[in-house]
């Protein structure tokens, strides 16, 4: 099988812009770690490890979307539904760091770009849609599956446009941005549909087997209530 490079390589976006996004990614992930602590209990911690491992596995499964073009799951929406936005962004980041450091996929210089697009933008877009859709759709495996599908498509396209922004700021070749944006959006709608089917199947299965482990079903079920907790 051909060597699969799936993420942004070194040298596509120049050094200064890549460095700025490393700083940005580190800052956002630090906030995620801080916010994730409230969500992470003895059950969610190992579950989040499983979600990261599952995303790693499914990212290896490139599916054909056009002749000569494939795509793979990014995982932000799937992670949001199963473990929440903060832990979810950290799950996707864990996968990207393992892929970069051990599998030489996604440049080390470009790690901030890749984390920004897939772990931060993709997860944030997925979260906004999931938070809205879960309240509108029935709280059962079907409703959750539809939520996962729609949120995945949007999340993947948003992540692809994150790359376009980074390329606009520091691309190392002179190419038409509208063309890049349009091509990326077009292929990523198709990739998003593939991701949506995988994410929908996965969350619907978990919702059927262990609904108590689905973050989106636990959290968005009722209107916001404040837990009164005495903090020492």
């Amino acid at each position, binding site marked *: 099988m051909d060597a*699969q*490079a799936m993420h942004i*390589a070194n040298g596509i976006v120049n050094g200064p812009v890549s460095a700025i996004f490393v700083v940005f990614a580190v800052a956002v992930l630090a906030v995620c770690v801080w916010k994730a602590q409230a969500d992470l209990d003895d059950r969610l911690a*190992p579950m989040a*490890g499983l979600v990261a491992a599952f995303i790693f*596995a499914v990212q290896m499964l490139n599916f054909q979307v056009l002749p000569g073009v494939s795509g793979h799951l990014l995982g932000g929406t799937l992670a949001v539904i199963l473990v929440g936005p903060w832990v979810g962004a950290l799950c996707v980041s864990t996968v990207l760091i393992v892929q970069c450091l051990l599998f030489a996929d996604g440049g080390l210089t470009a790690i901030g770009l890749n984390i920004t697009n897939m772990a931060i933008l993709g997860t944030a877009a997925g979260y906004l849609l999931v938070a809205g859709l879960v309240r509108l759709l029935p709280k059962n495996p079907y409703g959750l599956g539809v939520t996962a599908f729609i949120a995945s498509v949007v999340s993947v396209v948003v992540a692809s446009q994150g790359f376009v922004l980074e390329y606009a700021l520091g691309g190392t070749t002179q190419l038409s941005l509208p063309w890049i944006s349009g091509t990326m959006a077009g292929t990523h709608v198709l990739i998003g549909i593939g991701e949506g089917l995988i994410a929908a199947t996965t969350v619907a299965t978990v919702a059927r087997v262990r609904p108590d482990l689905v973050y989106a079903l636990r959290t968005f079920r009722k209107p916001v209530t404040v837990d009164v907790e005495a903090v020492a």
Partner: protein
Amino acid sequence: MTRKLGWFLAGGLLVALLLAGVVSNFASGSPDGLDATAREGCTFGADGEITGGTCMLQREEGHQMADSPLADYGIKGIDNPYLSTGLAGVAGVLITFGLGAGGFWLVRRREQKAA
């Protein structure tokens, strides 16, 4: 951790291991959406080197970890491509699970008195 959660985790890990260890060998070998867009405009030689044109990939630089024993989703030294990809996938799933679960366990919320 309850016993039932343990079973769920074991089942989930088994699925991930099968996907990364076996199904990965049937994945598409075409460049992904990003890579395909980055290649558009250039012509490529037999070894994948750029022979002409203008594309985003033109100024690509090598990967710092290219000599990693798991580089490019294969295990260095294993010639059988199915075995190499499959074992690299299994290693990746286990390492990601270990790092993820370990890391999240370390930062988890400790005040577990209620519930």
